[in-house]
C-alpha cells in the first residue's frame, strides 16, 4: 500500500559484538522473525523485525547480542507520545483496527502495589508454617448457607443437606484459560501436568480439548465461549468443571480472536473450524440476550452433565460488575470468574485492551460486597484473574474477597515467554504462542511443566508464609478479611470502594 509516511523508526536495535561472536548461527536458527541471516562470512541483522523476545540473547553462547529499545527518539511530547503517533501512522496507512498481544500497556497505577499486607506482632502470635499447619485447601463451588441435619438410628447426627459439586484445590492458584490455537499443545500439556502435580486446575480456553490433554482431563476446566468452538457433549463430559465465558478482561464486550495464521490442521480439527480461517467469536452468546437466558444455559449444561460438575461463569471487570456478579450468582452458576482489565490475550484490539474495563482489585472488592449485602456470598465462589503477577497479588486478591485466582501470563513467563506481545503473529520462538511444528517442538513439556509447577509451589509457599505471619492458619480466614490490608497513598473514594483503611488507621 502506498503512503507518504516512509518507514517508521524501528523499535529495537539489535547489535552483535563481533569480538565475541563465534558465528555459530544459533541466533539465525532461533529467531523465527528473521532478524538474522548469513551473507558470506558475516551474520547480518534486520533490527526492524525484532520483537525483543530475547530468544537469540538467551541462546547465544557468547553473550554477543544486545538489544536496545527506541534507539531513535521522536521529539519528546507529553501529549503526542510515541505510541499515539505510531498508532496514527499505522492506521493512516492501513485504515484498520490495531491488534495487540498480551495485557494492557496503559501506564496506570497498579492498585495491588498500593495495598500493604498485615503481620502479627504482640497481641497475636505469628504462626510458623515450618512447624504448624497452615491450610490452603480451597473448595470452589456452591456452599450451603445452612445445614440440615438428622439423627440416624443409632442416635448420631448425620448430614441431610446434599452438597453441590465443588472442585478441591490444594492451592488457591489455578492456571487460566488459554486456548489451543492461541498457544501450542506443548504449552497446554506442560501446564496440565503442572496442574496435576500441584493439585490445582487449568482452563482449556475456548479452543476445545485436544486428545493430547485427555490424560489430564480431570484437571481441566473446559470452556464454552460464544463461538462454541470444540464444544460437544464429549468435551463437556471430559472436564472437571465447565466455564461459560461471557467476557474477557483484555477486551470486554467483544468476542475472542484467533488469527488465521495460527489455525493449523490440528487446531482446525479441535476447534471444528476450517484450517487457516480467522476464528472470531461473536461478541454476545447468541443464546444469551438476558440474565434469564444465562441461567437456562447454565442449567442446560448441568442437565447434560447430570449435575455432577460445577459450572463457572466468567465476566470482564466493567463498571457494573457488582450487578453482573449478583445476576450470575442467581443463575445456578457455581462460581463467578472476574477478569480485570490487565488480563492477557493472544490478540485484542489495542483500543479495547488499553481503554475498556476496570481494575481487578476494585471489581473483586465490589463483587464481594454486593454478594455479602444480598446474602449470596455462599451461592458462588469468586475467582479473580487478569493481572496477577506474584504471590502477594494472590494474597491481596483473597483478602479483597476472592476464593482463588487464575494466572495466565505468569505461567507463560515461567515457560520462557518474555512478554514481547507479538503472540498474534504466530511465530513465538519459545514454542508457546505458535502452531509452527518446528517452533512448538522447542518447548519440551517435561521441562516446561516442571517450571510451571515450580512457580506454583514457590508462590504457594510464599502465601503460606504471608498467612503465617498474619497469624492465620486457614485460607478461609483470609478471604474478605479487609482488616489485614491497608491502603498506601490511595484516595479516600478508592479506599471506600475497596473497604480498606489507610495505613496507620
Amino acid at each position, binding site marked *: 500500500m502506498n503512503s507518504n509516511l516512509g518507514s517508521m523508526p524501528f523499535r529495537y536495535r539489535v547489535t552483535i559484538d563481533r569480538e565475541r561472536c563465534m558465528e555459530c548461527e544459533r541466533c539465525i536458527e532461533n529467531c523465527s522473525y528473521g532478524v538474522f541471516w548469513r551473507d558470506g562470512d558475516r551474520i547480518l541483522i534486520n533490527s526492524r523485525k525484532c520483537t525483543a523476545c530475547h530468544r537469540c540473547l538467551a541462546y547465544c553462547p557468547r553473550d554477543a547480542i544486545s538489544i536496545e529499545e527506541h534507539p531513535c527518539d521522536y521529539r519528546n511530547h507529553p501529549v503526542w507520545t510515541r505510541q499515539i503517533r505510531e498508532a496514527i501512522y499505522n492506521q493512516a496507512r492501513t485504515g484498520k483496527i490495531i491488534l495487540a498481544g498480551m495485557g494492557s500497556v496503559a501506564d496506570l497505577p497498579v492498585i495491588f502495589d498500593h495495598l500493604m499486607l498485615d503481620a502479627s506482632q504482640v497481641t497475636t502470635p505469628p504462626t510458623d508454617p515450618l512447624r504448624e499447619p497452615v491450610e490452603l485447601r480451597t473448595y470452589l463451588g456452591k456452599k450451603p448457607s445452612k445445614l440440615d441435619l438428622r439423627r440416624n438410628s443409632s442416635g448420631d447426627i448425620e448430614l441431610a443437606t446434599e452438597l453441590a459439586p465443588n472442585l478441591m484445590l490444594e492451592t488457591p492458584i489455578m492456571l487460566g484459560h488459554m486456548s489451543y490455537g492461541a498457544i501450542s499443545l506443548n504449552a497446554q500439556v506442560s501446564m496440565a501436568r503442572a496442574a496435576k502435580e500441584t493439585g490445582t486446575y487449568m482452563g482449556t480456553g475456548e479452543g476445545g480439548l485436544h486428545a493430547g490433554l485427555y490424560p489430564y482431563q480431570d484437571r481441566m476446566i473446559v470452556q464454552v465461549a460464544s463461538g462454541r468452538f470444540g464444544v460437544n457433549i464429549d468435551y463437556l463430559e471430559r472436564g472437571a468443571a465447565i466455564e461459560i465465558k461471557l467476557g474477557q478482561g483484555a477486551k470486554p464486550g467483544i468476542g475472542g480472536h484467533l488469527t488465521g495464521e495460527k489455525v493449523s490442521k490440528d487446531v482446525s480439527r479441535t476447534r471444528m473450524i476450517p484450517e487457516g480461517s480467522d476464528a472470531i467469536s461473536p461478541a454476545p452468546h447468541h443464546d444469551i440476550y438476558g440474565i434469564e437466558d444465562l441461567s437456562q444455559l447454565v442449567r442446560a449444561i448441568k442437565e447434560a452433565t447430570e449435575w455432577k460438575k460445577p459450572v463457572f461463569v466468567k465476566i470482564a471487570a466493567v463498571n457494573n460488575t457488582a450487578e453482573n456478579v449478583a445476576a450470575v450468582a442467581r443463575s445456578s452458576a457455581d462460581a463467578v470468574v472476574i477478569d480485570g482489565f490487565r488480563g492477557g490475550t493472544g490478540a485484542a484490539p489495542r483500543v479495547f485492551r488499553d481503554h475498556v474495563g476496570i481494575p481487578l482489585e476494585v471489581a473483586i472488592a465490589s463483587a464481594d460486597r454486593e454478594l455479602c449485602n444480598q446474602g449470596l456470598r455462599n451461592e458462588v465462589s469468586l475467582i479473580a484473574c487478569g493481572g496477577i503477577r506474584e504471590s502477594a497479588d494472590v494474597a491481596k486478591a483473597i483478602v479483597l474477597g476472592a476464593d482463588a485466582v487464575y494466572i495466565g501470563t505468569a505461567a507463560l513467563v515461567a515457560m520462557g515467554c518474555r512478554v514481547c506481545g507479538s503472540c498474534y503473529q504466530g511465530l513465538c520462538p519459545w514454542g508457546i504462542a505458535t502452531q509452527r511444528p518446528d517452533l512448538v517442538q522447542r518447548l519440551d513439556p517435561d521441562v516446561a511443566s516442571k517450571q510451571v509447577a515450580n512457580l506454583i509451589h514457590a508462590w504457594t509457599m510464599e502465601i503460606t508464609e504471608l498467612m503465617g505471619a498474619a497469624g*492465620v492458619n486457614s485460607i478461609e480466614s483470609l478471604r474478605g478479611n479487609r*482488616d489485614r490490608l491497608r491502603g498506601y497513598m490511595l484516595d479516600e473514594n478508592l479506599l471506600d470502594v475497596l473497604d480498606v483503611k489507610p495505613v496507620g488507621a
Partner: protein
Amino acid sequence: MCGIFGVMDKRRQVMDGSGIRQALSMMNERGSGEGAGYAAYGIYPDYQDCYALHVFFDNARESKAVVDATLEQWGTVEHDEAIPTYNQPNLRATSTPWRYFFRPDPSLAPGSASPEKDVITNLVMQINAGSNGAQVVSSGKNVGVFKAGGWPEDVANFYRIEDYEGYIWLAHNRYATKDPEKWERPDPFNLHDWSVVENGKITSYGTNRRYIESFGYTCSMSTDSEIITYLIDLLVRRHGLEINLAIRALAPPFWEDIDRMPKAERDLNRAIRLAYGSAAMNGPFTVVVANPDMMVGFTDRSKLRPMVVGECGDRLYISSEEAAIRALEPNVESITMPAAGEPVIGRVAP
C-alpha cells in the same frame, strides 16, 4: 492477655459474687487494671419473665430519654432504676449504669420462631449503633452484666457484686489495648440469652464481621466477644445447630484430621467447613459462653491461650488459670486441661 473465669452450678444452686471477685483477682497479673466485668444468671428472680436491660448512659438525662423512647416503641417497661453503685477511690465513673425490666412486643417480629429475642436483638443494635450516649450491655432474662474500667476488686466493690446471687457466673479481667476509658469495652459481652468472655484476639475478625453483618447483625463495639456472641446466636438460635456443632463451625478441625474421619463424620465436618468457612475463627482465643441452660468453653484449634477446667460436686469451673479455681473452691476434685479444639460443655439439669 486477659484472664477469664466461669462457674456453673448444675442444679441451679446460687452463689453470691464474693467468691467470683476473689477468683478473678487471682489473675490480676493477666490484666492491666483498666477493665473488668461480671455476668450472672439467676440474679433477678422477681422479674424473671422480663428482659433485664443493663444500660450505660453518658448522661442520665438526655441519653435516657432516647432509650426510654426506643423501648416504648418496641414493648413495655415493667420497672426501671439506677443500678446501685458505691464510689471507689480508684474508679473514675464515666457512665451511669441503669437497668430496665422490659417486655418486648412479639407482634413486632412477625414470622420469627423466637420473636421476643428478635425484637431484643434489633432494639439493642439500634441503641448501640446510634450516637446517643447509651450502650446496652446486657439484655437477657434473669441475667445481668456488671462492668467498668478498673481492677476486678474495684469493679466488684463498685457494684457490690456480693449482693447478687447467680447459678452461672462469667468474669473477665481485662488487659486493655484499646479504648481503656470505655466501660462497655471489657467482657462479658451479652445479647439476650448469651454471654461471652474471651481471652484472645482473633485474626479473622474482618472475615467474621463481614459474614455476621450479612445476616443483619450490626457490630458497633469492634470487640471479638461481640462477633462471637452474634455468631453463636446465628448458628444456634437461628440455624438450629446444636452447641457442639456450632463450636465445630467456629473452631473446626484441620483438613488432615477431617480426611482421616469415618465417612459420615467426614462428610459432616467437611460440610460444616464449607458452609461456615467465613464464621470460623482464627488466631489465639479461649472463649467461655453461657446461656441460662449451659456454660461452654472452647479454644482455637492450636490452643494458643490457656483453658483449665475444674469440677467439684455440681460445680463446673472454666478458667485461664488453676489458681482462680482453687481460690473459689480449694477442694476442687478434678482439674483438667482439654486438648486444642476440644470443647467443654456443661449443662444445667433440666
